[in-house]
């Protein structure tokens, strides 16, 4: 068992060192699929955060009761319950967003970030620590989706949160709001993340 980190470090690791999208490469499906507009990316980030935080709380509080043979199934049942709440909530109060996200809200069930955190963290740590970890991972995920969707909406439509940002001289790059644009943007961002990581590593050593 590695030495315990401070709670602040436990939170901050989700932002960069163990950022779910840029460092762990988890949750690629929603990352690629719904980041064509900032509002969609942000809504997906919030919904995932809701499910992740509450699932982590529940799993860490009942971790001693879960038989290890059926732990994954138990996690999935817990996660699926919160996903259903999130899905119904979006459909009831934000129908346009729910429609835009389509099947990707129910698909949060199989988001590897959430299951991964339960298996790797909540099932082994205290409730408080799991909450901080889930908060950090959620923030990291939301930030990643925001960066990705901002770039794609700006270049693909010339807008930010549907407000015209770039002037009429700008010809929208339609490819950026297509799936191909998602892969290109993610690829470039991952490259940049690795570049920053190596640069800071060589500087500190």
């Amino acid at each position: 068992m590695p030495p315990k980190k401070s709670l602040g470090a436990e939170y901050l690791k989700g932002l960069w060192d163990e950022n779910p999208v840029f460092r762990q490469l988890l949750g690629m499906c929603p990352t690629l699929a719904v980041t064509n507009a900032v509002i969609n990316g942000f809504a997906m980030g919030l919904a995932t955060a809701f499910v992740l935080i509450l699932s982590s709380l529940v799993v860490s509080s009942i971790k001693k009761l879960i038989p290890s043979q059926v732990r994954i199934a138990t996690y999935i049942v817990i996660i699926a319950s919160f996903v259903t709440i999130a899905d119904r909530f979006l459909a009831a109060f934000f129908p346009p967003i729910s429609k835009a996200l389509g099947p990707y809200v129910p698909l949060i069930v199989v988001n590897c970030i959430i299951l991964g955190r339960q298996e790797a963290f909540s099932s082994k740590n205290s409730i408080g620590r799991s909450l901080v970890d889930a908060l950090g991972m959620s923030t990291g995920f939301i930030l990643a989706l925001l960066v990705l969707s901002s770039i794609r909406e700006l270049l693909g439509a010339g807008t930010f949160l549907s407000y015209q940002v770039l002037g009429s001289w700008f010809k929208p790059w339609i490819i950026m709001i297509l799936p191909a644009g998602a892969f290109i943007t993610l690829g470039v961002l991952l490259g940049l993340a690795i570049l920053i990581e190596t640069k800071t590593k060589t500087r500190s050593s």
Partner: protein
Amino acid sequence: MKQNTFVLKSSPHFRDKDSVSKIMYTVVLSLIPAVIASVYFFRLKAVLIYITCVATCLATEAVFLKVRKKDLRSLWDGSAIITGMLLAMTLPPSLSLDLVIIGSVMAIALGKQVFGGLGYNVFNPALVGRAFLQLAFPVAMTTWIPPVTLNVNTATFATPLGNLKFQSSLTQGALIPLKDLFWGNVGGCLGETSAAALLLGALFLLFRRVIDWRIPAGVISSLILFTGAFWLAQPDSYASPLFHVLAGGLIIGAFFMATDMVTSPINPLGTWIYALGIGVLVGLIRLFGGFPEGVMFSILFMNTFVPLINRYTRPRILGERRGAS
């Protein structure tokens, strides 16, 4: 020191006089007739697109070489110039120059340098640039103007393949005469109009053995077989195979793009598989796909399979047992 005639040296023992830049400039030379033809058909617009493409490609390449701390001399190995010229040839003459710049930057950046530069790219860089433009600006990339030589006073114009795709039957003058297709007196991208000029350059390349004859032979013959089968069955609703060979980007694709040494298979069997795949895909897209033209996507698609083809067509080493690898 007469006794020192027994030389110990590691391989390679035989060296070719060819070098990367020599091959590249041979290709540049072979493209000249097609460049002249497109300038003749589209005048100043063509000249501007060629200059913008080549200059932007060189500039992007220089920036990447600088950032990656590589030798700046390899800027002049000719590969960036070819990418620029080939990209320009796949663009519609009416395309505005800011889009041309975006396409050229993407061709070098996404098509070549992100993979590690010349020799490491999976896809043909010029076609990556064009694919990016096609998906980013679909309207601008499918707006065609008639060649100056045709004396028609219209703002827009259809390509021979566009005509074929979007007209209901062949009887409404949908088929452009083969003579015009061959000499290039038709609408289309800069470099795909004149088959004659392209073939002149291609013959030069074949003669100098810069390109593998199997690739154009495979692409063209499989396209002829594919479209010919439909033409023989229903000559009223399908265009003749000769039309398909001469129209659109097939000649430039088969001779100049599919033959890119980096992105085509290494050995003869693999080359045949690759070339036949391209030909059949072009036929499929043209006859049944949503786009009128499919050469670009076919070549890019088969490019992805090149590593796999190379792996499965690797010749056995002497003594190696079948299936033991």
